[in-house]
C-alpha cells in the first residue's frame, strides 16, 4: 500500500507534531433522529497519550470513535488523525489507526490465524498466500510473537467460534497491532471480561504503549481503567461536560476529607464548632481537608477519637458528580 498520502493539514490551531488527534466542532445526527448523538465536540489528543473518553450509555462515545475511524460519516465538523483529514484522506487515516471495536469484529467461521492473515493482507503488510505455511517468515514470526505475548499461541489455528470472550478480545488486540498503528482506538475493550482477563489485558496494553509509544484513545465504563489515563474527557448527551487530567477533574469536583468519630459525640461536636472546623455528620463526622493537612487537624482535636480515616474521592465520584450536574 504505497498510495501517496494527501499532505497533512496544518490550518487548525494546534501543531500536528504534538497533537495526533484534532477534532473541531464534530456533529453527528443519525437519520431520523431528533437530537445530535455527538453535539459539537472539540478535543485534542497528544502523541503518545492515553486519552479516555467517558460517559454513560448513549453519550456518543462509540459514535465519536466510529467517526474517527472512518466507519461513520459525520454530519459536520473537522477531524484530523496524524494530520490526515478524515473527509479528504480516509485511506491514510485507516493506515494510521488500529481499533478494537466494542462488539467483537471477528469471522467466527475462520481460525484465529485466518482472521489475522486477512487483516494483514488487507492492510498491505504481506502478499496473499492461501496457507499460513506459505506466508512470508516475517508474518509467521509476528503472529507467533504477538500470540505468545497474549498467551493464545496454541489457539491460533482453532476456529474463533470456540473462543471465550477474553480470548476473542486478545485476538482482536493481536490483529489490531499487526500493522503497528500510531493511534489505537479501544472501544470498551474490557466489557464482558472477567477480572483476571481485564487485568491481563491492561498489563499487556501497558507493555504495548511502552514499546510502541502509540497514542491510545479509550472509551470505557470502568472508571478505574481511566484513572491511569493522561487525560480524560467526559461526554454526556453528545457534549463534553468535563475535560482534563484525572487528578484535575477530581480536584475540581471532589475533595479529600477526614472521617472521625468519638465515644462522646456531643463533646466532639461542641469542640469542632468551637474551633470553627467545618464538618458534616453522615452520621460520622466528615471534615474537608481543603486547606489543612490531616495530621495538623488531628493534633488540634482534644476529644478522644474512636474512628479516624481519610477519604480520597475516586474518579468515579467525580464522574458521577459531573453527570449529576449536567
Amino acid at each position: 500500500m504505497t498510495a501517496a498520502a494527501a499532505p497533512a493539514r496544518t490550518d487548525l490551531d494546534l501543531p500536528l507534531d504534538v497533537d495526533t488527534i484534532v477534532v473541531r466542532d464534530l456533529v453527528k445526527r443519525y437519520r431520523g433522529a431528533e437530537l445530535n448523538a455527538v453535539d459539537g465536540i472539540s478535543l485534542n489528543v497528544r502523541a503518545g497519550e492515553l486519552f479516555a473518553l467517558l460517559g454513560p450509555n448513549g453519550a456518543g462515545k462509540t459514535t465519536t470513535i466510529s467517526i474517527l475511524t472512518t466507519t461513520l460519516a459525520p454530519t459536520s465538523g473537522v477531524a484530523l488523525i496524524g494530520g490526515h483529514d478524515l473527509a479528504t484522506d480516509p485511506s491514510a487515516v485507516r493506515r494510521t489507526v488500529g481499533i478494537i471495536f466494542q462488539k467483537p469484529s471477528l469471522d467466527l467461521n475462520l481460525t484465529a490465524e485466518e482472521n489475522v492473515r486477512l487483516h494483514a493482507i488487507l492492510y498491505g503488510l504481506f502478499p496473499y498466500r492461501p496457507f499460513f505455511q506459505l506466508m512470508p517468515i516475517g508474518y509467521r514470526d509476528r503472529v507467533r510473537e504477538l500470540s505468545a505475548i497474549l498467551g493464545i499461541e496454541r489457539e491460533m489455528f482453532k476456529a474463533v467460534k470456540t473462543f471465550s470472550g477474553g480470548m476473542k478480545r486478545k485476538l482482536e488486540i493481536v490483529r489490531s497491532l499487526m500493522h503497528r498503528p500510531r493511534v489505537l482506538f479501544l472501544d470498551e475493550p474490557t466489557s464482558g471480561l472477567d477480572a483476571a482477563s481485564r487485568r491481563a489485558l491492561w498489563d499487556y496494553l501497558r507493555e504495548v504503549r511502552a514499546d510502541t509509544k502509540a497514542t491510545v484513545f479509550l472509551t470505557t465504563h470502568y472508571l478505574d481503567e481511566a484513572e491511569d489515563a493522561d487525560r480524560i474527557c467526559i461526554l454526556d448527551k453528545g457534549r463534553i461536560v468535563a475535560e482534563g487530567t484525572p487528578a484535575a477533574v477530581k480536584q475540581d469536583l471532589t475533595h479529600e476529607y477526614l472521617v472521625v468519630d468519638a465515644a462522646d459525640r456531643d463533646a466532639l461536636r461542641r469542640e469542632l464548632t468551637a474551633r470553627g472546623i467545618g464538618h458534616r455528620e453522615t452520621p460520622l463526622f466528615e471534615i474537608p481537608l481543603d486547606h489543612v493537612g490531616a495530621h495538623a487537624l488531628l493534633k488540634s482535636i482534644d476529644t478522644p477519637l474512636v474512628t479516624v480515616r481519610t477519604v480520597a474521592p475516586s474518579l468515579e465520584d467525580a464522574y458521577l458528580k459531573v453527570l449529576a450536574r449536567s
Partner: protein
Amino acid sequence: MIAAGELHSVLALAQRDLTKLLRDRARLITTVIFPFIFIGALGGTLSASFGRAPGFDFLTLTFTGVYAQTLFQSTAMGMISLVIDRENDFSQELFIAPVSRYTIIAGRILGETLVALPQALAILAFGLVIGIHISLPQLAGLIGTGIIVAFFGGAFGVLVLAFLNNQRAANQIFPFIFLPQFFLAGVFTPIQVLPWYLEIPSRIAPLRYAVDFVRGVFYAGTSDYDHVVLQDPVANFAVIGPAFLVCLVIGTFFFVRAERNR
C-alpha cells in the same frame, strides 16, 4: 504496487468465502442438491412429455438454463453475506481497512463466484450422468460463460442489496426478484414467442441475457441453435458487460453510503 495490493486483498476476501463454504457441510450439500431437482425432475418430466417434438431436447434446454440460473442466482444471493457481515459486526473490520471499497466488493463477488463453482461442477457432472451430450468445446464454453454469468450475478446482487437494510429484508426480496425471472428468462421453457406484456419484463430481466449467453455458446454450430437461442452471444455480452459495470459501481456506491451514512 497499489494494484498488486488490491489484487491480494481481492484474493484474500475471496478465499474467506470459499473457506466458509467448505467448512459448512450442510450448506455444501444443499446447494449442490437443489439444481438436481430442477434438472432431474422438471427437465426430465418435460423431456418425457415432449421429447424432441418442439425441435430441440427439453432436458438439454433445462440443463443449460438451470446451469446459468444457478450461477447467476447463487452469486447474487451470496452477496447477502455483505449484510450478514454488517449484522455480525464483521463489516466494520473490512470497511476500516485501507483498501478501495470496490476492492472489498470485488473480493466478495469473486468469493461468491468460487462458492458457486462446486454447484456448477455438480450440475455438469449430473448433466453427463443423465445423458446430456457435452463436447469438449461446449464444456469449455460452459465454464467460461458460467464464470462471466456468476460475476454478473454478483454485481446484480450488490445493486439489490445496496437498498436493503438487513438480512431478513434481503431474504424476502431476493425470491421475489428471482422467481419471475425463472420464467421471463426462459430457464425451463423457451421464450422465443411471448405476449407483449411478458416480452417487456423479459427484456428487462438480467437473467434472460445470462441464460441466453450460456445457451448461445453451448448451442453454437448445432441444429437446435435457432430453436433455442434468442440472440447472438456477442449481443448478450454487449448487454452483460456494461450492465455488470453499472451494477457494480452504483451498487458499491450506495452500499458504502448506507454503511457510513446511518
